[in-house]
């Protein structure tokens, strides 16, 4: 018996197998079928026949299905090109979903990828901020393009090499202005040679930058005078202008104008103005500005500074008229010297240093201690480091993306089969890398903010002051990041979009080898760059250790220096010294005008047999107040003897010279030779030769030196025993307070003084250490990602090897040795480059360490062991896995 309902049910079930029908379609057809059958039954046709007739009339289910599907599907090949953009927009949610899923599925991979890039970008931002800060120096003066500092090339007979000095004669600037109409303005500047004790009522402050300047200071520079008349404030003797900070310290909110302060040499100075604090990014720094007329007789009585040509103690800045060529003016300087200073015309060759180069390009100049100075070479090094790290991070990004790409072959295959073309796939994958790079950028900004305390630790937080001004730099870096992300995304997306669907869907392993050789090249590049940085760090460290450990020619340990120059103690030097020596922990005390690690004065000397004019020969001098310097510092006598207190001539006639002077004078046996020091010692006799000792950083050769007796009590060097240092210091402090009421007790250990000479190098070392650490970290990130990938790729091989009896160690070795090979190749590539750079960096030092093989060995060892540990984690995991799991699926 025919059952219509059953027949309909079967028919519907058959239709549902055809995927082109939706439920609604089937129901609509069913309704049609029932209508037709009902009508046929009304015409007395049996149910069974009616059903088959109705079915027949309805037509082929396949054809109908095809037509129905056509009405649903959009045929994209027929959409116009200009509509494809909106088509990508329609797919955007799907792309985002895919990106998010890939991110989640490959969480470690993705995090490594983004963090690596973020670290690279953060380094880049920090370095850019640093560089832009360094270049911002002195840029706030409106006349900066017309300001020049007068420097000179010095070619002394006593030294074979040329030196560049920033100092000029006192009268030089004003004389130039008289003679050359192209000079608009002149300002003479001199930061006082040491800190100056300034007092007001009960307040006593050691002022670091007590600076003598002309009243033209405010015409030349744009430092803003808050109160006072810029033209008159610095004309009268003993007039001073306070910085805001100083005004705040001494007078709080009171108006300081017209008040008096006790300053240099115990004189009273009148406040005639208040000036804004010098900006951080100014090479000229000041706390107090004082008038030059203050040095005239009747006041400080240092008029030799401004009136005599011989002393070289003043910095001269010129403003040239508009459209004046500095070269033309420079060409007139030799004649100017002949006219005004013929004695030194042959030795001093004046030149003009553009104002905007003073901060960064003064590393070869001597006598620039009062000023802040940077180093353009270091900036180049840091820019390179920044580029290196960004490059490494980008390579990581690329490498990991390529490795990941093969995992997504199926997705590409399916998308292609569904009609995606190469362009669309390319855009999809580029979009993903873009998204990743934006995430990395956001993360890197966070890292930069976190790094602030660390920067403060190495005295670099000043760069953050300019963070707000750096928005252009940061947006530039944002663009760079995006660009880097896109560039590193191009290759993987090109590879991905080129997959042939038939290949990737049919045989999943056929794409394994794609990109492996490129990946290897990239890993080698990464590690080469990192190894270069590590070697650089090691070489700098080695030089600094060399400087720290090399015999300086004296014993710098446990010696401290007290500045007594303008204290009450200088009037009772002998008594104070004897008080100190009563303490058994104080080994010895010596008075002198200077000490190793500080700058020595230079005097003209007149050696026997070489008498010329007064100043033909120049030598550093060390003036001693007593004869104890030898014991305090442990200097050694080469020949002859040191001063002896019993011999009265030793404090009038005797002179001790160093080996360098004997050598430059060509004296084989200097003992007994005549040596006059015009103005100080007539008919001097050399009684001994002291072994060379370093007074400056290893950048400078040891200067010729004369030592003679001239009691001035400028400073005391105190040698204390290594035990009870704190008690000894407390004892000195108490004695200091007995002798000197105003000035607080301050001291400096000589070894600290010396390490300060390498502050710039130490800063470079610290930064380079940090950055090379980060570089290797980022490189290892990449390696880690790759090792996960390789281990996964070779999981079957590992399984088979294990089944056949491989040991854990042989599998770890198998997986690691390929990578280690790459690191070794990187070492071979990095070695010559870094040797070259390290070698040229060391040339800046007169006394330098050998590079040797150790930096290379260490760098190689570090790179290899880090690489090995990075890989080993994955390799061991892979090697420990049960082969059953990896092998059962086939």
């Amino acid at each position, binding site marked *: 018996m025919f059952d219509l309902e059953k027949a309909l049910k079967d028919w519907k079930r058959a239709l549902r197998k055809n995927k082109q029908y939706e439920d609604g379609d089937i129901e*609509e057809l069913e309704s*049609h079928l*029932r*209508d*037709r059958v009902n009508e046929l039954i009304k015409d007395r046709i049996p149910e069974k026949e009616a059903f088959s007739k109705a079915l027949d009339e309805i037509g082929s289910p396949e054809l*109908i299905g095809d*037509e129905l599907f056509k*009405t649903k599907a959009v045929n994209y090949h027929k959409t116009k090109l200009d509509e494809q953009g909106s088509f990508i927009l329609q797919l955007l949610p799907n792309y985002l979903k895919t990106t998010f899923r890939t991110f989640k599925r490959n969480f470690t991979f993705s995090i490594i990828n983004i963090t690596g890039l973020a670290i690279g970008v953060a380094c880049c931002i920090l370095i850019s901020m640093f560089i832009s800060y360094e270049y911002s120096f002195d840029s706030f003066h409106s006349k900066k393009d017309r300001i020049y500092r007068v420097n000179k090339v010095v070619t002394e007979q006593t030294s074979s090499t040329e030196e560049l000095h920033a100092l000029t004669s006192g009268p030089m600037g004003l004389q130039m202005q008289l003679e050359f109409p192209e000079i608009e303005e002149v300002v003479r500047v001199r930061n006082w040679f040491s800190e100056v004790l300034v007092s007001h009522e009960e307040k006593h402050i050691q002022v670091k930058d007590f600076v003598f300047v002309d009243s033209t200071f405010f015409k030349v520079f744009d430092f803003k005078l808050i109160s006072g008349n810029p033209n008159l404030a610095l004309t009268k003797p003993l007039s001073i202008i306070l910085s805001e900070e100083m005004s705040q310290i001494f007078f709080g909110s009171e108006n300081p104008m017209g008040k008096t302060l006790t300053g240099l040499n115990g004189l009273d100075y009148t406040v005639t103005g208040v000036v804004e604090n010098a900006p951080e990014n100014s090479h000229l720094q000041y706390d107090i500005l004082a008038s030059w007329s203050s040095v005239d007789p009747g006041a400080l009585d240092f008029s030799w500074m401004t009136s005599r040509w011989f002393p070289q103690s003043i910095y001269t800045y010129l403003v040239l008229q508009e459209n004046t060529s500095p070269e033309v003016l420079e060409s007139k300087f030799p004649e100017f010297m002949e006219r005004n200073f013929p004695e030194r015309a042959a030795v001093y060759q004046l030149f003009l240093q553009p104002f905007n180069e003073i901060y960064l390009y003064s590393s070869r100049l001597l006598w620039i201690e009062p000023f802040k100075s940077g180093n353009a070479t270091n900036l180049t090094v840091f820019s390179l480091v920044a580029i290196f790290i960004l490059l490494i991070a980008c390579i990581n990004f690329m490498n990991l993306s390529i490795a990941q790409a093969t995992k997504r072959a199926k997705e590409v295959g399916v998308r292609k089969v569904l009609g995606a073309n190469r362009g669309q796939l390319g855009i999809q994958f580029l979009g993903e890398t873009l998204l990743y790079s934006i995430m990395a950028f956001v993360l890197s900004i966070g890292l930069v903010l976190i790094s602030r305390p660390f920067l403060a630790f190495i005295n670099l937080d000043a760069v953050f002051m300019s963070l707000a001004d750096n928005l252009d730099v940061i947006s530039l870096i944002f663009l760079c990041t995006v660009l880097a992300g896109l560039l590193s995304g191009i290759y993987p997306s090109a590879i991905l979009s080129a997959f042939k669907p038939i290949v990737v869907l049919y045989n999943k392993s056929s794409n394994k080898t794609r990109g492996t050789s490129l990946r290897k090249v990239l890993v080698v590049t990464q590690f080469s760059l990192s190894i270069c940085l590590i070697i650089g760090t090691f070489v700098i460290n080695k030089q600094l250790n060399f400087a720290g450990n090399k015999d300086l020619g004296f014993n710098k340990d446990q010696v401290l220096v007290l500045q007594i120059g303008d204290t009450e103690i200088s009037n009772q030097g002998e008594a104070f010294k004897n008080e100190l020596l009563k303490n058994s922990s104080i080994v010895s005390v010596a008075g002198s005008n200077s000490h190793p690690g500080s700058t020595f004065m230079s005097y003209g000397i007149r050696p026997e047999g070489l008498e010329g004019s007064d100043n033909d020969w120049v030598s550093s001098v060390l003036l001693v107040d007593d004869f104890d310097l030898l014991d305090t510092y442990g200097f050694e006598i080469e020949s002859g003897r040191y001063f002896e207190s019993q011999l009265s001539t030793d404090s009038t006639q005797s002179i001790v010279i160093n080996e360098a002077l004997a050598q430059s004078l060509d004296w084989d046996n200097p003992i007994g030779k005549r040596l006059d020091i015009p103005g100080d010692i007539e008919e001097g006799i050399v009684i001994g030769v002291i072994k060379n000792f370093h007074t400056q950083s290893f950048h400078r050769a040891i200067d010729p030196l004369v030592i003679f007796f001239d009691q001035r009590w400028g400073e005391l060097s105190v040698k204390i025993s290594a035990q009870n240092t704190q008690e000894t210091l407390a004892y000195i402090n108490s004695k200091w307070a007995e002798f000197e009421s105003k000035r607080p007790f301050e001291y400096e250990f000589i070894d600290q003084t010396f390490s300060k000479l390498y502050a710039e190098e130490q800063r470079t070392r610290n930064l380079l250490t940090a950055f090379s650490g980060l570089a290797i970290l980022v490189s290892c990130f990449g390696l880690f990602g790759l090792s996960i990938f390789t281990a996964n790729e070779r999981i079957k091989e590992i399984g088979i090897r294990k089944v056949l009896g491989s040991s854990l160690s042989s599998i770890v070795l198998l997986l690691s040795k390929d990578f280690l090979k790459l690191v070794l190749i990187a070492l071979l590539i990095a070695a010559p480059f870094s040797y070259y750079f390290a070698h040229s960096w060391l040339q800046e030092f007169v006394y330098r360490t050998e590079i040797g093989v150790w930096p290379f060995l260490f760098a190689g060892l570090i790179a290899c062991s880090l690489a090995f540990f990075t890989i080993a984690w994955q390799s061991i995991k892979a090697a420990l896995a049960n082969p059953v799991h990896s092998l059962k699926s086939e």
Partner: protein
Amino acid sequence: MLSKELMAASTRPLILTILKRGESYGYQIIQDVKQLSGGSLEWSDGMLYPVLHKLQKENCIQAKWAISEEGRRRKYYSITDAGVAELETAKAQWQNIHVVLERIWGPAPKWAIS
């Protein structure tokens, strides 16, 4: 027997014309077409539905599910404003062709159109 292309082209104005008279459903539309064409337009009944769906997608007609007198669910179609406009265009085009062909061949025999 009409060619497939001509069938496809002519079905749309036919359906629209029928729906312009009032709401209808698939089976009824087929019956109307058969009646109107006097049997000269022969097609399998099922092929109507893809055309209806296409028209619906193009917004020329709209559809709703409703319960029929027999108590079954049935999909009813009605024409939209866009459908009316579409029909007017089609009408003008068919009449143009008709005029051109008539000018060449002379008037068609009366029985062909009822």
